[in-house]
């Protein structure tokens, strides 16, 4: 209990979550930078264009898609009723398998403090199907979104998913800045938000 008091919501939102995402992204950026030649480009999904058609799960050349769901914690409401976690119409908000939207149970729901819940993606289980992204985008803030993970991606000359993407959402980006992560609306990169208010 004492632990919980020390680790209050605002601290959590303001620092912990932000840093966890930042470290995660920086780590991945590091791996990506190693994988790519300096000055090169890699494939990435523009989360504002993606329409969650399911082809990221089915059309990657790898047997396990290089596309995974990532979570922009800064945008998340830490909601009890998460549109990305729960199937629609669920009345009893518990973690029962029958209530979960994700086909592989790749999202962990963790109680933080009343009324906040954190949603963590287990990337080993995530197949990049975008179902949770659709739920989060339709009912929530769109904090869940798909990204090509560069620790997995082969950086094919022509990305097999980009070729079939109906939304033209996949494009080449600089290898030293390989992620298009949705941002924090109070931070300087809030351009991601200004088009939403």
């Amino acid at each position: 209990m004492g632990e919980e008091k020390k680790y209050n919501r605002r601290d959590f939102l303001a620092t912990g979550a932000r840093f966890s995402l930042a470290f995660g992204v920086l780590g991945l950026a590091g791996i990506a930078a190693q994988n790519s030649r300096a000055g090169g480009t890699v494939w990435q999904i523009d989360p504002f264009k993606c329409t969650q058609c399911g082809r990221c799960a089915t059309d990657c050349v790898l047997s396990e898609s290089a596309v995974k769901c990532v979570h922009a914690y800064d945008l998340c409401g830490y909601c009890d009723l998460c549109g990305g976690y729960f199937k629609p119409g669920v009345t009893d908000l518990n973690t029962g398998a029958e209530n979960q939207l994700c086909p592989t149970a790749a999202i962990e729901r963790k109680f933080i403090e009343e009324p906040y819940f954190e949603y963590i993606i287990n990337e080993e289980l995530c197949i990049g199907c975008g179902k949770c992204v659709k739920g989060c985008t339709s009912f929530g803030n769109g904090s869940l979104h798909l990204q090509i993970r560069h620790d997995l991606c082969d950086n094919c000359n022509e990305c097999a998913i980009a070729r079939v993407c109906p939304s033209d959402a996949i494009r080449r980006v600089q290898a030293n800045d390989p992620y298009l992560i949705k941002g924090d609306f109070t931070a300087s990169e809030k351009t991601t938000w200004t088009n939403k208010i």
Partner: protein
Amino acid sequence: MQNKMIKYFLLVLAILIVAIIATNYIGNKPKNAKQNPYEYNVEEFKTVPDSLISHTEVRQVKITVKQHGSLTSFDNTIWFSADNSVKNLSLEGKILADFTVSEPVRAIAVTSDLVVVAYEKKFAAYSHDGEKAFESDVITDSTYITSVAFLNGKIVIADAGKRKIYIYDKNLKGREIEGISGAKNLHGFVIPSPYFDVAVSASNELWAANTGMHSLQHYDENGNLLDSWEKISNNIDGFCGCCNPAHFALMNDGRFVTSEKGLTRIKIYSRTGELESVVAGPDVFVEDGHAPEVAVIGDTVIALDFDRKMIRIFGKRESK
């Protein structure tokens, strides 16, 4: 003979290769996409039974706006602000007043003698003719103002960046409300994205949309919670997502006109939070568009549709 055989063989092989490439190419065209095995159909949540629809669109007023603005009503007219401009319009769309201000406006509130416009981090007051009366200092560096209202001659500011409400008196001395009441089910303002609206009723009640909790909350000037209701549901009678209702306005009798993002829709709730009707469902707005800011004149609901760049006026349906 052998040469001929080889030629035929190569020809058949070439046709086969072309056929395979063509099939592959056509099959991979986005429009020929196979059935999505992970389809999540949210369409059913976008349909609203006709029996619930209480309003019909009676007028559209085209506007020029680059950044999302704000609108409110006063004295049966519309006050609309966007970018650096403030306009007073009749319900027919006739311009009654028009002036410019120093920064892009994010929120507007009007009384009989003042027009208060909120910028991102501070606010200013003008006369109805556009003469500047005063301007506040920057509230804080992380302030992100999303709404402004008047309460007993004081200016109420909703700050989504700090997740606080400020109430300023005439001398611009402020008091903060954090929405923490000590009650078991209240946890301060939960504002995950910049949607944090406040409004004051005809009987001077200050209401705030605690959007992360899908709740409307009534506070007194000292920050004491007097009343609240919440409706969490994916269905039409509730609010879903992280930040709804994104905007709201109060009718003269204290009922709520709410505007939601995600599934963009405008609804009317009773004073105690029962859904009464739907003014406009998701089908009349751009998919995944912005939640329209709303204002009310009598039974008429006015919506600022940023995606379509117009002010849309919804009148009560005759038959209802």
